[in-house]
């Protein structure tokens, strides 16, 4: 993946507007967080291949990190802490946020075809 350039990613987000798309949305701090530090909490959530449609999509820069909001007819999809992006198999937009050690903390992925499951 490469560091997010806002204009490039905004341009790609626009291409998914008003289409049926599949979403992978995830956040995690690892399965060992509370094992390695008893004061930490294991927190994580993911949804893979949720089929949605959104009519607005916007990426916002905040220092070195980015947020993305997708507006659906009756709700929102939101991700904070994104740092990197790539196009996977030329059709799937992958965005993710990594910590200093390169570990994934958050990801938002959009595709017109399902992600492998």
């Amino acid at each position: 993946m490469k560091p997010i350039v806002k204009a490039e990613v905004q341009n790609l987000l626009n291409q998914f507007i008003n289409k049926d798309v599949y979403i992978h949305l995830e956040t995690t701090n690892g399965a060992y967080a509370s094992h390695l530090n008893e004061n930490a909490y294991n927190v994580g959530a993911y949804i893979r291949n949720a089929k949605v449609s959104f009519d607005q999509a916007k990426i916002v820069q905040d220092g070195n990190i980015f947020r993305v909001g997708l507006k659906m007819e009756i709700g929102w999809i939101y991700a904070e802490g994104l740092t990197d992006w790539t196009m996977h198999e030329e059709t799937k937009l992958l965005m993710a946020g990594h910590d200093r050690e390169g570990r994934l903390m958050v990801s938002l992925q959009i595709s017109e075809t399902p992600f492998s499951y």
Partner: protein
Amino acid sequence: MEKHVVVIYPHPDDESFGAAGTMTQFREQGVPVTYLCGTLGEMGRNMGTPTFANRETLPEIRKQELIDACKALDIELRMLGYRDKTLEYEDRGEVAAHLKGILQEIKPSLVITHYPDHAVHPDHNALGAAAIEAVRLMDPADRPTVWAQALTEEIDGKVRERDIVNDVTAQFDTKLQAILAHKSQASPMLGLMNTEDKETIEAVKDRFNTESFFIWKYDD
């Protein structure tokens, strides 16, 4: 001497961190070893340092790392096809029946797996429980011995001495080679080993120079 050893863990790299030295000891004796790997670690958050994997490329990358690690350990590999982080939601009986079928085919004399409820990661606990159940479902006369690996100090509220404590110092080079085959996952550990802090280095070595297990006791 064991006839055949089957190791059952859920993730690529569980075998290298947890039992590579023990498996190498068995291979040195000429005992066949088969690793049943539950998932491809699809939901892992380590993407390499610096990052070279992403959520979509990680499964294939980890699959190749797993194949390379098993080559380094000279063991047979079978991939079970479950998905990372989901094992505790699968039907326990179905997973146990799946494992039992494989065990009846291989006929191992020893099975190594995680100690249910004391293996920290939900996948470890779930697959360990299914493996122990798979052996329980077998005719008592045909059952292999089961070594269960706990990753917590305390078992059911008290510190219990492990039945099997393997010093794998002599196998450490092979073990390290297997760990390093998991390139996308090994860097946090190597980060610890590269620290200036001698206590940390010793703690890491101590942790990985010993592989310990409980012998599972069946009531019937």
